[in-house]
């Protein structure tokens, strides 16, 4: 990404990161912390303790009005009209031809629909939603709110140490939430929207906090022994280990959901209704009729393969591409995500990747590479 410093916007926690010694880089139009003490140490800290991530560059939106969830179904394949209050769903924003415009989290707060979309795509998403959704609905971009993610096996222990109360007496406290549940809370009379969700594969929370209180809240968390601030570098290596695709890299408008290996986001009810944008193109590939598919790779040897490297056949013809790649701090070996022809997409298939004139052997691996550690609601 080539971004010049003059045009970079500052986020509410910008100075706080700098004071903690973060290295700041341009990202999604903002100046953001890429690392503090180092990607490896921050990654391992998050897998064993709890890491605090500033993800305030992401777009927080409220869709307000009668029938908001139903209306959103026109441009997403998620069963949003069936989403109960306090529940979250992962879904995709689809173009009219079924191409993936973004991936997002949708929460039914009980009185509106709260969306979290990617930072780099948020302005395009807002324009598309305003164009596609009925005028009776209001789409509010919550630019006065910061977003923090507290992630790791000790995230719940840490959050429980802050005196966070439910918005109303008798409602659950944050640590009562299960994975993909959300609710409204108060911390020192400051309103917080807390979701039990994240982008690391670990248990954890995503917390929306008014911008003017973001520093105080972040500082209260990092004062705890379990919590350290974590930069975007470790955020990327954590989500790669968790097998979670990154928009703009592992997904883009030329990719359809089945190709992206996101069949779980195509709910049964919506497949039967087949009335979302691009349904015809999307469902023509369901469940396994696409030509190519996003898969995980274990890379032989120690050298990582990177986004942009080619997948080649025995004759050296390009038959696919690597969309994310790096070194897994947990597994201590290189891992990657790539698009390969369906015939080669099975676990255990051997794949050849060409990078800087060198051929590197890989094996298709099941994802996640590192098991998820979510706090799921027990099955009854």
């Amino acid at each position, binding site marked *: 990404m080539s971004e010049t410093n003059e045009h970079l916007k500052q986020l509410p926690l910008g100075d706080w990161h700098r004071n903690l010694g973060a290295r700041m880089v341009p990202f999604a139009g903002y100046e953001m912390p890429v*690392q503090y003490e*180092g*990607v*490896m*140490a921050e*990654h391992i800290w998050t897998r064993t303790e709890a890491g605090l991530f500033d993800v305030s560059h992401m777009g927080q939106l409220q869709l307000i009005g009668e029938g908001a969830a139903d209306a959103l179904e026109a441009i997403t394949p998620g069963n949003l009209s069936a989403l109960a209050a306090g529940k979250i769903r992962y879904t995709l924003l689809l173009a009219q031809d079924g191409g993936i415009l973004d991936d997002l989290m949708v929460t039914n707060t009980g009185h509106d629909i709260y969306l979290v979309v990617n930072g780099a795509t948020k302005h395009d998403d807002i324009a598309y939603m305003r164009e596609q959704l009925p005028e009776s609905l209001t789409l509010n971009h919550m630019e006065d709110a910061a977003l923090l993610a507290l992630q790791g096996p000790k995230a719940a222990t840490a959050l429980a140490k802050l005196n966070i109360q439910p918005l109303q007496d008798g409602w659950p406290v944050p640590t009562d939430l299960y994975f993909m549940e959300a609710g409204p809370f108060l911390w020192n009379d400051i309103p917080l929207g807390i979701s039990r969700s994240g982008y690391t594969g670990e248990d954890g929370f995503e917390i929306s906090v008014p911008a003017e209180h973001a520093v105080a809240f972040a500082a209260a968390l990092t004062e705890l022994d379990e919590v350290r601030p974590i930069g975007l*570098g470790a955020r*990327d*290596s954590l989500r790669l280990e968790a097998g979670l695709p990154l928009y703009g890299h592992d997904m883009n408008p030329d990719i359809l959901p089945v190709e992206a290996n996101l069949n779980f986001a195509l709910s049964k009810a919506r497949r039967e209704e087949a009335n979302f944008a691009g349904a015809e193109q999307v469902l023509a590939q369901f469940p396994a009729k696409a030509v190519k598919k996003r898969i995980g790779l274990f890379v032989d040897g*120690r*050298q*990582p393969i*990177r986004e942009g490297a080619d997948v080649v056949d025995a004759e050296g013809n390009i038959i696919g591409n690597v969309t994310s790649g*790096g*070194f897994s*701090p947990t597994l201590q070996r*290189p891992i990657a995500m790539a698009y390969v022809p369906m015939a080669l997409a099975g676990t255990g298939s051997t794949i050849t990747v060409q990078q*800087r004139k060198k051929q590197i052997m890989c094996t298709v691996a099941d994802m996640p590479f590192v098991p998820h550690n979510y706090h799921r609601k027990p099955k009854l």
Partner: protein
Amino acid sequence: MSRYFSDEHEWIEVEGDTATVGITDYAQEQLGDIVFVETPDVGATLDQGDDAAVVESVKAASDVYAAVSGEVIEVNEALEDEPALVNSSAEEDGWFFRVTLSDKSELDDLMDAKAYKAFVDNL
């Protein structure tokens, strides 16, 4: 023995016609945790400015350009098992390769330690 520095953050230690090449402490600090170093082949001939090595951190790959021309006579085998040597000892044990210099006048383009420090302080 004298040590030179390039504006691409390499150090070049010259002894007679032989130069030992590595990346500076500043460079390793910028790159972060190094997980792999691709060194050139012994016997390869490098021209000034050629891609000589690749340093891989958790997040990204960075090219190391040949600051001087010459034939590669030795590479640091220790980096294969312990690439983090570049983090812990960039300017000593974490050296990359040795070349026989083919044009010593190229050294005139490089900085000494004092000039390099001033260069880094201005970044």
